[in-house]
C-alpha cells in the first residue's frame, strides 16, 4: 500500500498508511473457517484498509473484480501497459515465489504489480512478504488471482483514480485514531475488538486436552500463525501501530502519543509471549494447558482495553 502511494507521488511510510486507514483491529470469526479452523485477525480486511485511506488522502481507489480469468488478465495487462501500478488480491498457494512452507490456501494476500515483460509474459511483482521484487509467470498469477474458496479474490485489482495528496495531519490523525479505538472498544458485536479477545479466550479454554490433544494443538498453532505470519511486523500488528503512533506524535504535535506507543510495544511483546507459550505447548516442552493460554488472552484484552481508553483520552484532549 505504502509503496503504491509512493509511486503516485505521496511518500507515506508503511506504519503511517496502516494507522491512517485505522487498520488495527481484532476479530474472531468462528463462522469463517480456514481448513476447519476459525478466522482470527489482528487487523481490518484489506478492502477496508484501501477504503480507509481514501478520505484522509483525498483520492478514489478504483476496485474491479471479474467474472472470468481471461477478462481479469486482459484488464491487468491494459492497466500495466498504461503505466499504472496495480494492487492485486491473490491466493498464496498458487504463487511460485512464496516459500513452499507458506503456501496454504489463504486467499486474502495482497501484492503489487508494477510492470510486465512483454517478451515472456512475466509480471513484475512487489510482494510485502519478500524483501526484493520478483517475477511471476502470467499463468500462475492469473490462477492465484482467480482461486476459489473462502474469501475468493475474484481477480480483485485496485488502483487510484486520481493522485493522492498529503493529508491535513492535525485533523486526519486524531480522526483515524478515534476510529480505531471505537472499533476496539465499542463495536456492538462481541466478536470484534477487546470483546472478541475475551470470546476467543472462552473458546480456547474449552478446547479438549485429553480427548483430542492433536486437534487442540493444531487450533492454537493456527492462532499463532494468524498472529505472527499474516502481514508485517509481528505481534499481531501492534508493533506496526506503535510505529505509527510514534510518527503521529511528531506530525500532530501530541507527545502523549509517543508515550502510548511505548506501552503498545509492551502489549505487542505480550502477544509474542502468547505465541511463545503456545509454541512450547505444541512441541510438548510445556504441558498442554488451554486454560493458561486463555488467561494470557484475557490479560491481553485487559491491557488493550486500558490502552485504547488512554489513547482516546490523549487524542481528545
Amino acid at each position: 500500500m505504502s509503496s503504491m502511494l509512493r509511486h503516485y507521488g505521496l511518500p507515506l511510510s508503511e506504519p503511517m498508511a496502516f494507522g491512517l486507514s485505522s487498520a488495527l483491529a481484532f476479530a474472531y470469526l468462528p463462522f469463517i473457517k480456514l481448513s476447519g479452523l476459525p478466522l482470527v485477525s489482528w487487523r481490518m480486511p484489506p478492502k477496508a484498509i484501501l477504503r480507509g485511506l481514501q478520505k484522509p488522502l483525498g483520492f478514489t481507489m478504483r476496485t474491479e473484480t471479474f467474472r472470468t480469468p481471461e477478462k481479469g488478465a486482459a484488464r491487468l495487462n491494459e492497466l500495466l501497459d498504461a503505466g499504472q501500478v496495480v494492487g492485486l488480491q491473490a491466493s498464496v498457494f498458487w504463487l511460485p515465489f512464496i516459500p513452499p512452507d507458506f503456501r496454504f490456501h489463504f486467499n486474502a494476500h495482497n501484492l503489487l504489480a508494477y510492470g510486465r515483460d512483454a517478451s515472456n509474459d512475466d509480471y513484475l511483482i512487489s510482494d510485502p512478504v519478500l524483501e526484493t521484487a520478483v517475477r511471476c509467470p502470467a499463468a500462475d498469477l492469473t490462477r492465484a488471482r482467480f482461486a476459489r474458496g473462502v474469501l475468493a479474490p475474484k481477480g480483485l485489482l485496485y488502483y487510484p483514480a486520481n493522485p493522492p495528496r498529503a493529508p491535513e495531519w492535525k485533523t486526519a490523525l486524531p480522526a483515524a485514531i478515534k476510529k480505531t479505538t471505537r472499533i476496539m472498544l465499542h463495536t456492538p458485536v462481541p466478536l470484534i475488538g477487546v470483546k472478541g479477545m475475551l470470546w476467543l479466550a472462552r473458546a480456547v479454554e474449552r478446547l479438549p486436552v485429553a480427548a483430542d490433544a492433536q486437534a487442540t494443538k493444531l487450533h492454537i498453532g493456527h492462532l499463532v500463525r494468524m498472529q505472527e505470519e499474516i502481514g508485517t511486523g509481528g505481534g499481531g500488528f501492534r508493533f506496526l501501530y506503535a510505529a505509527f503512533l510514534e510518527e503521529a506524535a511528531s506530525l500532530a504535535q501530541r507527545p502523549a502519543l509517543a508515550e502510548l506507543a511505548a506501552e503498545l510495544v509492551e502489549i505487542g511483546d505480550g502477544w509474542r509471549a502468547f505465541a511463545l507459550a503456545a509454541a512450547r505447548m505444541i512441541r510438548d516442552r510445556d504441558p498442554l494447558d488451554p486454560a493458561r493460554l486463555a488467561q494470557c488472552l484475557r490479560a491481553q484484552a485487559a491491557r488493550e482495553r486500558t490502552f485504547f481508553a488512554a489513547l482516546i483520552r490523549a487524542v481528545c484532549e
Partner: protein
Amino acid sequence: MNVNDVPQESNRTLDGQRKGVYARRADGRLALVPSQGWEVEEIVTRQAVEAFEALAAAARERARRGESSPLEYHMYRARMDLSLLAQASGLWRWRVRRHLKPQGFARLSPVLRQRYAETLGITCAQLETLD
C-alpha cells in the same frame, strides 16, 4: 521489543528469505529490522505443513489398500480439505465425498476428471496415480 531481541533463528520455512519486524532502536525510536525468523513461527508453520503431510500419507495408504480413491491423496497433497475442494471445483460436497471413494472415483467422467486435475494443479494422468 528491542533491536537486539529481534530473533535471528534462521527459520527454515522462510527458505532463506528475511522478514521485517518493527523493533526499538538504541535511540528509542521504532524501526524496521530484518529478521531471519523466529523459532515459534517455524514450529507453527511446520506443524500445519506436517498435519497435511500426515493426512496425505494416510490417504495414500488407504488408496493403496483400495479403501479410498487417489483423489483423497491428491486433495491433501494440495493442502485442501473436503469443503475447500468442493468450493474450488464448484461441485457439491456430497458429490466430492462420493468421488473420494474408489467406486465413485472409478465412475468419474473424463470431464470431471479434467476438472479435478485442473483444480488441484496436476494432469489427468497424475490424478490416477499415487505419486
